[in-house]
């Protein structure tokens, strides 16, 4: 029997607000253990949470970006369980009424567009972190307690492991584009749970699902979905049934392992968080947050294609990093070269020399555009352009001035090139004869000789034209 895969995702993203969600502690990664804590995030007796307005605003922006309904009146709930990294023994989250519900994300670009429904986005606090010391003791670092999170929950609308990857990449892009989250995977600031089920093709009801918890990378999520689909398919094809369970994804062994079954499912005893009361967002604020939303990656990709004539692939590559796309558009604003040419330089050479990363050799976008203009106009060969690019950062000169100073500019002057060509034709009678006898390959040799005679600066296209005219004429 043929089976269809259905994957739903729960994406957790740490927000990059200045402070934690319920207290004034700094929200920062990498501080010495237990230095970014206070009575509130440590859950000391008598301490009370106060909801950060910045967290609300950022979550609403993400909701807008995913076309969600914003529930202007919502509340927070306590999700209760015991664990040493959870100081209050409950996580303040949202259960019954999430901040955002019923949106969607359209995956487009080079591929067939797919619409993934977003069931909800809710806000919650992160827990601390257990650290296993070499001496066997387990220590707890509470710095991460109260770091704001949003959880984005999709419908089971992803039907291939690759779609899981596309979706997560697009979500990450949007989070970065909005400045909502840094999505630093290595810091665990974006993680996801992957819910996987299979059903016979054409069946209406979803099959029993397994949940793979706490996957830290996009590639991990893709591999987990693929592995789990294969595991379930094998069970079903052998006439078995899928146990509803929670499984752990082992990214090193590249397989999922049982964690707990449905019978062991925790009862979180949700109830409304009495310390915070009802959250009411003014309509005006919700509207303003929508109106001030920046251009989203998908829109930007479309616009880069139409406005600058770059390919779909180049647009996607440029938009993959908001800083990169911004750099490109700043360069284009100089009005010196075509989008294609500038995109080539950015995506090929500048990225290779890490020229867009902070602290690395950096060239102002207008200067790169000036360089691109030189190559586009044939004043500079591609090879000479690379030499120029490497020398530009430490030079205060414009690309044109530096190219002249370094002697990199191509010789385009027909008269000068014609005199070189005449000399080469005189010096190499044999290839000339060969060419005239129909061996047109000999032209390449003659162009090469002309290039050498011009000290490498002659424009090969112009030389080729002049030589052809002389030989054929």
């Amino acid at each position: 029997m043929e089976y269809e895969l259905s994957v739903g995702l729960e994406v957790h993203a740490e927000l990059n607000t200045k402070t934690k969600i319920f207290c004034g502690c700094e929200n920062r990664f990498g501080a010495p253990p237990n230095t970014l804590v206070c009575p509130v995030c440590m859950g000391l007796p008598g301490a009370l949470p106060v909801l950060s307005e910045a967290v609300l605003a950022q979550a609403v922006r993400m909701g807008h970006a995913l076309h969600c309904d914003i529930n202007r009146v919502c509340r927070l709930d306590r999700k209760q369980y015991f664990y040493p990294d959870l100081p209050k023994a409950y996580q303040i989250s949202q259960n019954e009424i999430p901040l955002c519900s019923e949106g969607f994300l359209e995956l487009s670009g080079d591929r067939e567009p797919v619409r993934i429904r977003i069931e909800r986005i809710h806000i919650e606090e992160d827990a601390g972190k257990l650290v296993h010391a070499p001496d066997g003791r387990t220590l707890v670092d509470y710095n991460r307690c109260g770091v704001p999170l949003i959880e984005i929950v999709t419908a089971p609308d992803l039907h291939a492991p690759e779609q899981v990857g596309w979706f997560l990449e697009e979500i990450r892009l949007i989070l970065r584009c909005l400045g909502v989250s840094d999505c630093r995977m290595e810091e665990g600031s974006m993680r996801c749970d992957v819910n996987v089920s299979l059903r016979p093709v054409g069946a209406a009801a979803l099959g029993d699902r397994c949940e793979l918890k706490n996957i830290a990378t996009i590639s991990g999520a893709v591999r987990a979905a693929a592995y789990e689909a294969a595991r379930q398919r094998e069970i079903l094809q052998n006439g078995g049934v899928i146990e509803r369970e929670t499984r752990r994804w082992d990214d090193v062994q590249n397989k999922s392992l049982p964690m707990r079954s449905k019978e062991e499912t925790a009862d979180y005893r949700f109830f409304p968080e009495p310390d915070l009361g009802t959250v009411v967002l003014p309509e005006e604020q919700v509207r303003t947050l929508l109106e001030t939303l920046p251009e989203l990656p998908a829109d930007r990709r479309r616009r880069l294609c139409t406005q600058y004539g770059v390919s779909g692939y180049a647009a996607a590559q440029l938009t993959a990093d908001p800083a990169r796309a911004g750099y490109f558009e700043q360069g284009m604003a100089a009005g010196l070269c075509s989008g294609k040419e500038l995109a080539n330089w950015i995506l090929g050479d500048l990225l290779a020399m890490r020229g867009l990363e902070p602290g690395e050799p950096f060239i102002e976008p207008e200067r790169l555009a000036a360089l691109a203009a030189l190559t586009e106009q044939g004043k500079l060969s591609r090879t000479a352009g690379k030499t120029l690019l490497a020398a530009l950062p430490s030079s205060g000169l414009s690309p044109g001035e530096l190219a002249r100073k370094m002697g990199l500019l191509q010789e385009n002057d027909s008269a000068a090139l014609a005199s070189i060509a005449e000399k080469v034709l005189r010096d190499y009678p044999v290839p000339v004869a060969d060419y005239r006898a129909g061996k047109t390959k000999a032209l390449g040799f003659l162009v090469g000789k002309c290039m050498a005679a011009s000290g490498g600066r002659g424009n090969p296209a112009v030389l080729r034209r002049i030589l052809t005219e002389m030989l054929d004429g």
Partner: protein
Amino acid sequence: MELYAQTAETLGRMLRRRECSAMEIAASVFSRIRACEPDLHAYITVTEAAALEQAAKVDEKLAAGGKLPPLAGIPVGIKDNLCTKGVRTTCASRMLAAFVPPYDAAVCEKLAEAGAVFTGKTNLDEFAMGSSSRSSIYGPTKNPLDFARVPGGSSGGSAAAVASGEAVFALGSDTGGSVRQPAAYCGVVGLKPTYGSVSRYGLIAFASSLDQVGMLARSVRDTALLFEAVAGRDVRDATSVEMAAPVLTAGLGQPVEGLRIGIPSAYFEGSIAPDVAERVMEAAHTLEKAGARLVPVTLSSAHDALAVYYVLSSAEASSNLARYDGVRYGYRAADCENLQSLYERSRSEGFGDEVKRRILLGTFVLSAGSREAYYLRAQRAGQRIAREFNEAFALCDCILTPTTPETAFGMGEKLESPLDLYVSDCYTVAANLAGLPALSVPCGFGANRMPAGMQLVGPRFSERALLGAAAWYETLCGPFPMPALGEWRDRHGV
């Protein structure tokens, strides 16, 4: 009269007239504490050294001719579930016996700013769960009027300290009557303000949606003074709000002509002790004779209030007390094999029976199988009770009821079934469920010579009206007698 027996209002006046010093006031109260504590046990921790320093500062300021803040030099007791920076805050529990908060509760900050002198931390039922102050691991507090009787609870230590002169006034907390019931049992005034009018920041939570910091004092005006000093919005408590109309102590005590007082007949029938019902009705008639109007009101869902209260308060308690797991602070059982046994043993050994009972009850009512039948139903019933009060307030300005169905009971009574004890909250819990302000005022003595209390409940933020009506009553009857200050001595030959 000894300084410790004076009201805060009088002491403030004396201090400003240089008729006494803050040091003299403090010395009087601490000598009173030394004299009474062996019998009374109203305090868990007495902070005399720090208090004398505070008093000395007040005197310095007075000598320098500076303007004194409103409560300068007045000794105040603090219930031991309000955090005090550097002073252990135990909740009368083994769980927090060694807990020293790194911060002050908002109300303590405000009192310190107002110049009050902290006498110490008063005894209570463990985690404020109880009505007799007997469940403290530090031993019970006695009723100052009769050592063989309970002072009520959970703010029994605060009530006993105020009644006996071990403090001029005190802060308590009231989740279902924990300020008003002990105030009634000890013959003092007790106020549970509107939910949200006083910051809960630093009040160790029992049931967050019902908890409110309350005041106990020997006069209505002192109660108002203390309330004014701590009320107001606090950015650290998201449920706190700014009072629309602040209480002005100056205007209290004037006749409140035409005041409409609602009388719910159901509160005066059934299991109530006849002498208590009589005292409270007499008080109502005293006000009527002076110009108030008594209006019959119906509070039919009030009999559900007790059940609703125990479901909701236990549900929240089970959550609020989950943090005491032996991991970061508080009691940790020795030699645990693993994490699970650390949790189980620390909590089993760290909590007393009543606390465990409520945690179990609360966990049960929130569990998947019983949430709808108990928790959600109780929530709806609570909203119904609040609605009914609001409807009643269309007919009257405040509602007058007994505070408790009987006067203080014996130390050995009501120990067998927890339900017997729960019933003593039956008239007070509704105000917490509805978030309303409620005040208990002494109104004479029962057949056993123990004080009875009448309760005034008003609409949200009607503290000024409630205190005004009570102050009027106080003016009509003369200052509330302070039997605690002499009677128990006579009776027990101390």
